[in-house]
């Protein structure tokens, strides 16, 4: 991982009342010299690694379990990827799927910080052949 440049996406959990606009304003209010780009799911923040991590820590302090983040390989507005410049943008298939999961993870983090523990999952059983036949055969 390079120390010079880090691009991070900040994604807001759907259970949160925070909006991407509020998040971007919050980050701008820190006065840090990082590129901040508002997106539909939250925002992208780009800058030196230490600065981006500092912004992440400050955002987490204010919204501990509502904003999730991961790094992004390509820089903001990279012509090879950016849709505005006809890049080969592959889409948000996984991000969209994980965005739906974030509300559950937020709930989980909230409960765990209150002291909740884990329960063992029940093993999923294979469906019996007769049940499977009954499902397949349209009555």
């Amino acid at each position, binding site marked *: 991982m390079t120390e010079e440049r880090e691009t991070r996406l900040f994604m807001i959990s759907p259970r949160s009342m925070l909006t991407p606009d509020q998040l971007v304003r919050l980050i701008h209010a820190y006065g840090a010299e990082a590129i901040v780009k508002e997106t539909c799911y939250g925002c992208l923040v780009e800058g030196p690694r230490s600065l981006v991590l500092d912004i992440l820590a400050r955002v987490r302090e204010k919204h501990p379990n509502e904003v999730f983040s991961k*790094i992004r390989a*390509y820089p903001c507005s990279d012509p090879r990827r950016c849709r505005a410049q006809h890049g*080969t943008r592959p889409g948000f298939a996984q*991000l969209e799927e994980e965005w739906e999961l974030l509300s*559950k*993870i937020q709930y*989980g983090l909230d409960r765990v910080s209150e002291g909740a523990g884990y329960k063992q999952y029940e093993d999923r059983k294979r469906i019996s052949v007769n049940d499977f036949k009954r499902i397949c055969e349209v009555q």
Partner: protein
Amino acid sequence: MKVFIDPPNSLVLFDLVERFGHEPLSTMAAIQERVDNLEVDMPPMNVTLDDVVRGLKYAGVEVPSGVRGRLSLWGPLIEQADAAIIMDDCPYSFGCVGCERSELMVKYLIKRRGIPTLHVRYPSTDEEAVSFVAMAKEFLEGLN
């Protein structure tokens, strides 16, 4: 400690590993190195031709080049990992889009390394998510 996450581009796992004080090893970091240091100008925009050759270390020549390309990114990460978290049954890891064969190879490579590994199921309800987070927290805090 360096923790390999599987799926290697998962936002949830990346965030949780970092949140509980470890360094996640992810696809994004591997691709970032290539973007910053090498020219990645050809589709699929995340591996170079040399990577596919390097992938031969982890998968045989008869394996599709897509699997080798993925393993050329993930193999070195697994080699430097001190621990791993694997999320099983992810809906987006199914079929050729998620490349089930690569996923199986990754699980095999992790098992062969013998590092501490946590298998968690993709949570489908709030209660499962509580268990998922609690398990991940206990595992990651126990690594210190």
